[in-house]
């Protein structure tokens, strides 16, 4: 088996879906982090619902998952949690924010034909999905209280 980059080739529509899902998930993670902190400080769902005047069912659904989130949902929750959103987008070619020696597959050696990593052929790998051509979008959404 040769490089498997075909597995992750995306059409423009798929790229839009992928970008949307990654951004939305980052927003959800950021809100959940602050929500966990507020809970530990004593805030309840009822408090949060009252703060932004939303239905308890709506709030519960949106804290359970971001499936129907819009930017309006995100903004409302950030405000209700007394947070401040800071959104940054970095270029794919830029270094990762935190470089470490960690390598997830270090104890899983493989050998074979080519594959890509960080846009370069780095090893002979028969069975590795080469995702460097469609790397994970770098994105960071943080909330500060």
């Amino acid at each position: 088996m040769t490089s498997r980059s075909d597995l992750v080739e995306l059409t423009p529509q798929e790229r839009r879906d992928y970008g949307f899902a990654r951004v939305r998930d980052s927003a959800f993670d950021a809100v959940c982090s602050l929500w966990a902190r507020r809970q530990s400080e004593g805030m309840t769902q009822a408090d949060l619902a009252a703060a932004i005047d939303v239905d308890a069912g709506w709030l519960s659904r949106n804290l359970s998952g971001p499936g129907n989130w819009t930017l309006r949902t995100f903004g409302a929750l950030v405000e209700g949690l007394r947070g401040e959103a800071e959104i940054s987008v970095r270029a794919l070619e830029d270094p990762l924010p935190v470089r470490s020696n960690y390598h997830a597959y270090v104890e899983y050696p493989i050998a074979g034909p080519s594959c890509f990593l960080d846009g370069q052929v780095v090893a002979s790998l028969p069975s590795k999905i080469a995702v460097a051509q469609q790397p994970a979008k770098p994105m960071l959404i943080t909330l500060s209280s």
Partner: protein
Amino acid sequence: MSTQIRARIQKLETSGLLVRYEPRGSRRRLFLGPDAQKDLADQTSATNMLVGKGFILAALDRWTLGKRVYGKTRGGFLDRLDPPPPDVWEIRVTEPIVQARLFGRFAEADTLLLTKFHTRTMLGDRESRGWNDAMNHCDQCWNTLFPGIPCFTAAHIHEYVTENCDDFPI
């Protein structure tokens, strides 16, 4: 145990039966079995056509990049299904229109092996025949790929996902 399963994975990768999914900056390990490879690569697979490869890849990236994994109580990204068969896990892709369920098992902590992608609608209700067939298919795939080698089992999700796992109540 680890040595045995890693050696087997290496052999399966060399033969092409397993493919590792490794975006830049991976923090967790993910391998795809033959059916899952096909589900991801084939533009006409049910999950690619009805759910969308972009959403599937976003879910795979959430896992491999070490992003937060939500247990059953919040977000429900990763969930262990009720046996039998035991220790079948699903990654849930919960888009508004058509959802997907990516079935698999753990080879080790933080090492997930996906066997097959399903659309939620095709699975039907929990405990339906569709669910049972899909879970049994996962079990059969594991037994074919790893004959005589049990999957990783533990009591709590935090033993399967050692970092950035949120299973606290909403």
